[in-house]
């Protein structure tokens, strides 16, 4: 059941709301759990067993970690400082064993479902490279829906309990609801347990306001997906499948359109996710913050898929940077070359780990690894040259934060992002490289106008896309200025408010790209 299907927002969600609201407060989280199990079933049926195994493993690990924490704290009460340190070390070793086993157990499922096929290909390529006869054959299995998301949420929970950030959850059903919660199940965001636990289990009544706010957000998501993303899909498909037949500007336009499509699809899904949760008074943190206003790649990644970036920052970047091994290497550099160079090296090592994992997380394929290393290189170069660029601006007496310079910095960032997303969407790494070659070697505008109007989009489509993007741009600018459109709208009188809702509903029905001649975008992040 897709979030964009009529069955989801006009049948499933209203039924859940009604049952949820008529039952007592204490039972309501159980309704959310049952609804989530049903939702999972519609996608992956009995593969739910793997999610339950993950839940049981992190529940048990949480229980044992908590037991060790309590034991350690009880013993350490009457000890001297030195003895306390020794005790802490002793228990840290025990806890680490529990943590490592749990993480390995959970990532094993992820590896099995997502990466086994890829590593089989890598191994077979190596075998043929060294002219060794024989090849591995592995039957690919369908992965449980949302495995990439709930595995990371499970890891974040268990690492936080390990670090004594909060106590373990003693009710296994609550833990299952946290991992399985239907709005965040398919495409995230990756939630942290202590960010959602209070809202998730409090069983607040669905009020008129939470219902309206939630459905407004869902409508906005539907608008982004159905009016813009689905409309651009045919053009994007044509360009990415037959890039060799087109000149460079069309291929580059395909990359731009794909980036817009991806943003509209993914952020549109997030609108539906956040809106659905909001109906039940459950606050889910934003996963996007106007990413196309970023002045550099680093900033872009702090505004795009924020929950994934935060996961990597908290559980990979800082732990790797501050690990004993990396500290040992960088302390020598610090003595000889100073703090800034040592931090740069420290950051580079961790960034390499982050972007290798980020690329792989997005998919098992060389193009995703390339996508990761492309961004790693851009961020690293940005870090290295940042002081020089600042000096250059100062020397030329140019204000780097003036409107015109900021505008050009944003354009530069967007172009780099378009190229990255082109590799990301390409059918293979080879296709991505060939597309790049077309852009560089065949950059001619001959026949451009004709092609633009014959690849699935006509003048009417461009006008609808243009006006819709202007509408979204205005909302984004207001958000950047900390003006919440929905808050402001809710203060207006009822006639104006409902006029806006109807305008949005009618525009989806009239301008939505569905029916003959259109191919809706498949949920992109659901496959990651």
């Amino acid at each position: 059941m897709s979030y964009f299907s009529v069955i989801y927002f006009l049948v499933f969600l209203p039924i859940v709301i009604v049952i949820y609201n008529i039952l007592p407060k204490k039972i309501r989280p159980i309704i959310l759990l049952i609804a989530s199990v049903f939702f999972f079933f519609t996608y992956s049926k009995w593969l739910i067993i793997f999610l339950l195994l993950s839940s049981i493993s992190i529940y048990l690990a949480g229980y044992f970690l908590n037991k060790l924490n309590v034991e350690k704290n009880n013993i350490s009460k009457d000890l001297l400082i030195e003895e306390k340190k020794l005790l802490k070390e002793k228990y840290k070793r025990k806890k680490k064993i529990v943590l490592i086993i749990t993480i390995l157990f959970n990532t094993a499922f992820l590896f099995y479902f997502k990466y086994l096929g890829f590593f089989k290909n890598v191994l077979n390529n190596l075998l043929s490279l060294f002219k060794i006869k024989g090849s591995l054959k592995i039957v690919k299995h369908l992965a449980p829906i949302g495995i990439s998301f709930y595995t990371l949420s499970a890891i974040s929970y268990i690492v936080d309990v390990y670090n004594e950030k909060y106590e373990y959850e003693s009710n296994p059903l609550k833990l299952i609801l946290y991992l399985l919660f239907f709005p965040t199940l398919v495409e995230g965001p990756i939630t942290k347990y202590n960010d959602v636990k209070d809202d998730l289990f409090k069983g607040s009544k669905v009020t008129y306001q939470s219902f309206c706010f939630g459905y407004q957000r869902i409508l906005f998501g539907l608008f982004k997906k159905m009016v813009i993303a689905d409309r651009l899909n045919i053009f994007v498909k044509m360009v990415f499948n037959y890039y060799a037949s087109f000149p460079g500007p069309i291929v580059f336009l395909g990359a731009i359109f794909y980036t817009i499509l991806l943003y509209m699809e993914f952020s549109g899904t997030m609108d539906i996710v956040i809106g659905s949760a909001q109906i039940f008074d459950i606050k889910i943190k934003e996963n996007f913050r106007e990413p196309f206003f970023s002045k550099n790649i680093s900033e872009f990644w702090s505004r795009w898929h924020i929950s994934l970036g935060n996961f990597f920052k908290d559980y990979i970047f800082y732990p790797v940077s501050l690990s004993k091994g990396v500290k040992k290497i960088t302390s020598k550099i610090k003595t000889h070359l100073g703090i800034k160079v040592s931090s740069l090296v420290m950051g580079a090592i961790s960034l390499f780990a982050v972007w290798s994992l980020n690329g792989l997380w997005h998919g098992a394929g060389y193009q995703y690894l390339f996508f990761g290393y492309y961004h790693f290189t851009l961020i690293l170069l940005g870090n290295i040259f940042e002081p020089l660029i600042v000096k250059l601006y100062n020397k030329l007496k140019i204000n780097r934060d003036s409107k015109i310079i900021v505008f050009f910095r944003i354009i530069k960032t967007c172009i780099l992002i378009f190229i990255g997303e082109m590799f990301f969407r390409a059918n293979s790494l080879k296709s991505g490289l060939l597309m790049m070659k077309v852009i560089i070697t065949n950059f001619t505008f001959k026949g451009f106008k004709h092609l633009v109007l014959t690849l699935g989009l006509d003048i009417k489509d461009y006008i609808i896309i243009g006006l819709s993007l202007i509408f979204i741009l205005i909302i984004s600018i207001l958000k950047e200025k900390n003006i919440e459109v929905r808050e402001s709208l809710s203060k207006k009188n009822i006639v104006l408010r409902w006029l806006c809702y109807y305008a949005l509903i009618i525009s989806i029905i009239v301008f939505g790209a569905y029916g003959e001649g259109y191919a809706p975008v498949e949920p992109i992040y659901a496959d990651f």
Partner: protein
Amino acid sequence: MEKLINILEDLHPGVDYNNCDNLVDARILDSLTILSLISEIEDNFDVTIPTVEIIPANFNSAQKIYELIVRLQEEE
């Protein structure tokens, strides 16, 4: 506290560290600067900052960073 302000000014000059309370939120301290800062704090104050403490709430102002150092010194 003065020692900490000096470290911060060396790493990222031109900020009013006595009053600024959104060092992380306003991206004044980015992740690389935080790494440099942690390295300097660990060398100068003889504490180890665990990764779990690297949250905006602990690094948004010089005062908060100082409170973190004092707390970690007491715990150790």
